């Protein structure tokens, strides 16, 4: 594990000594230009023989047209690498989700009807703890809470277990016995311009301590980070799409890969930027996602990897993860 090399055989030898266990190591992942999310699907979307799915794909197809996506990613020439993906919710209502054998063919057929191809299908439970690496706890550990004015490091960050906000909460109005009565004070958003849009996000439910239930918003944040290729576990990659044969699908979602690759030769799953076409009901969730992502301390080496690679392709990439995310919200 130790490499020792002596350069030059003259009087003063220059020694290069290194122990590999003593050096930080972070792997790079292959990157597309844009990761396009075609939707986020619940059990009820599969109750009408694909009608809901066909309607969804028909509405978004014109917006995820290659030239539009290329322009969004800042690509002026050449062939953009665009990977399409979607997320199946096998997490919040585990029992009611029809099996992959029903869901996957319906999705593929409905997309094909609108001329869309699906490169990757992921299951939401893999964003929680059911994958090879427990991703949700890993990302939670990376949170660096946004400090309100007056945070000097002397106290641990105010941490309401399982919650994350974008400012300072309204203080409790009940004080100590015989203490002065306290008037209500509003919560405040950090770095607000005069007026606050304060948001407090539930990351996980604590109703049953035996089983952590991660919130939709938190899992959606993990999903965005995965698509941006910004998650590492001990420096190693956590995104490994597994090819899936649509003719040979498992009976249970737990046997489906975390990320199934539906098409040979599909561009890489991770990308410089993400673009999600979603129903407007997801607007509050994605606001929460941005509040969370704004406080995830992504490894700076990893952020620089993608920025540097993009630069080589002539693309300017924002330094912050939240700057790399775009949306299309469609009304009902």
């Amino acid at each position, binding site marked *: 594990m130790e490499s020792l090399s002596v350069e030059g055989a003259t009087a003063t030898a220059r020694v290069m000594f290194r122990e590999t266990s003593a050096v930080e190591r972070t792997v790079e992942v292959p990157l597309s230009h844009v990761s396009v999310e075609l939707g986020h699907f619940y059990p009820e979307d599969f109750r009408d023989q694909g009608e809901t799915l066909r309607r969804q794909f028909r509405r978004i197809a014109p917006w995820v047209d290659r030239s539009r996506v290329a322009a969004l990613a800042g690509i002026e020439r050449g062939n953009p690498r665009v990977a399409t993906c979607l997320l199946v919710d096998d997490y919040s209502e585990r029992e009611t989700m029809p099996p992959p054998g029903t869901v996957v063919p319906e999705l593929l057929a409905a997309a094909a009807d609108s001329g869309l191809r699906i490169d990757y299908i992921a299951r939401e439970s893999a964003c929680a703890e059911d994958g090879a690496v427990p991703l949700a706890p890993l990302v939670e550990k990376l949170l660096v809470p946004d400090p309100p004015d007056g945070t000097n490091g*002397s*106290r641990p960050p105010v941490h309401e277990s399982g919650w994350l906000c974008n400012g300072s909460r309204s203080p409790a109005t009940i004080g*100590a*016995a015989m203490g002065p009565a306290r008037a209500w004070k509003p919560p405040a958003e950090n770095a607000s311009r005069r007026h606050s849009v304060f948001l407090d996000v539930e990351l996980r439910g604590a109703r049953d301590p035996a089983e952590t239930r991660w919130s939709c918003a938190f899992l959606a944040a993990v999903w965005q980070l995965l698509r941006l290729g910004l998650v590492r576990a001990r420096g190693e990659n956590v995104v490994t799409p597994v090819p899936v044969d649509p003719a040979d699908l498992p009976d249970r979602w737990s046997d489906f890969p975390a990320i199934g690759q539906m098409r040979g030769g599909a561009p890489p799953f991770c990308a410089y930027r993400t673009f999600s076409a979603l129903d407007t009901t997801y607007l509050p969730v994605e606001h929460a996602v941005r509040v969370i992502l704004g406080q995830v301390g992504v490894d700076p080496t990893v952020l620089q990897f993608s920025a540097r690679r993009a630069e080589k392709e002539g693309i300017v990439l924002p330094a912050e993860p939240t700057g790399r995310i775009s949306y299309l919200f469609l009304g009902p």
Partner: protein
Amino acid sequence: MIIFATSDKGGTGRSVTSCNVAYRRALQGSNVCYLDFDFGSPTAGAIFGVEAAGQGTSSGSGLHSYLAGNVAEAEQLDVWTGSGLGGRWSKPLGAGRLTLLPGDFGGGEFPVDDAMVDRCCELFLSLDEEFELTLVDLSSGRSYATELVLRATADPAIAEKTARWLVFHRWTSQHIRAASSLVHGPQGILDTGTGCGHERRELEDGIRFVRTAVLEQGSAQLEGLRPEQEVWLQAINTDLQKLAGKLRLGTSMMLGSIPLDPVLQWREQIIVEDDISNTRIANAETGKAFEQLAERLTDDGMWEGL
């Protein structure tokens, strides 16, 4: 090792005895820190003669502020250099450190929450890195301070440390009853401790009693009593012995006995060698009692389970 000093009632001389024991122990070579957890009346500074913290510190970083989470670290005062008791207090050769963690000036009692228990744990653990002996003087009776340390010492990391309790009481019927009740009675130390997760038996094995302001048979103060008084005193003493035995604070549970000494009644301060041998305002027995108590804190023979 962590030593908790408590008492059933006020006025037992708990604080002044604890300070003297800490002082003797440091003289014997141990690094000792003294924590003023008498939150309602933080006066340990005055007993040690550390004027900067006579009635608690004004720095805003005493134990009240630390436990409330207002400051990251509690103030530590070196007693050897900070004490103004006659200026005779340079650290003797071979003596250990003697450090006071004062309460805040004007600080009072406060209810306990989880975060406070956690800070208390951290404090005990970090002090244990530096000091052989952490002596914690608690408010008397069933206090928040007692609840706080019972909860803190139930933490797995602290539970590995040896913790011992000294319960101070005067040698009167009321005091004996109250001290017993503080330990064994409803919502007493054992009840509360068990509720916090302590093993009742283990906790009980770590508790000993210290009698204070005791009139010793045959001591100089009893000379000149009329025979009737002497007989009466003898009878009372026998009754008290019986009562103490019945209430589980008999001789086998007693770690020490501090004789009545006027200088302790009138001047609640450290008794130094000079007070005994030169100015002779204090009795030699008192000094010996402190010294013996200081030694017995870590004498495992005195702490074997019964």
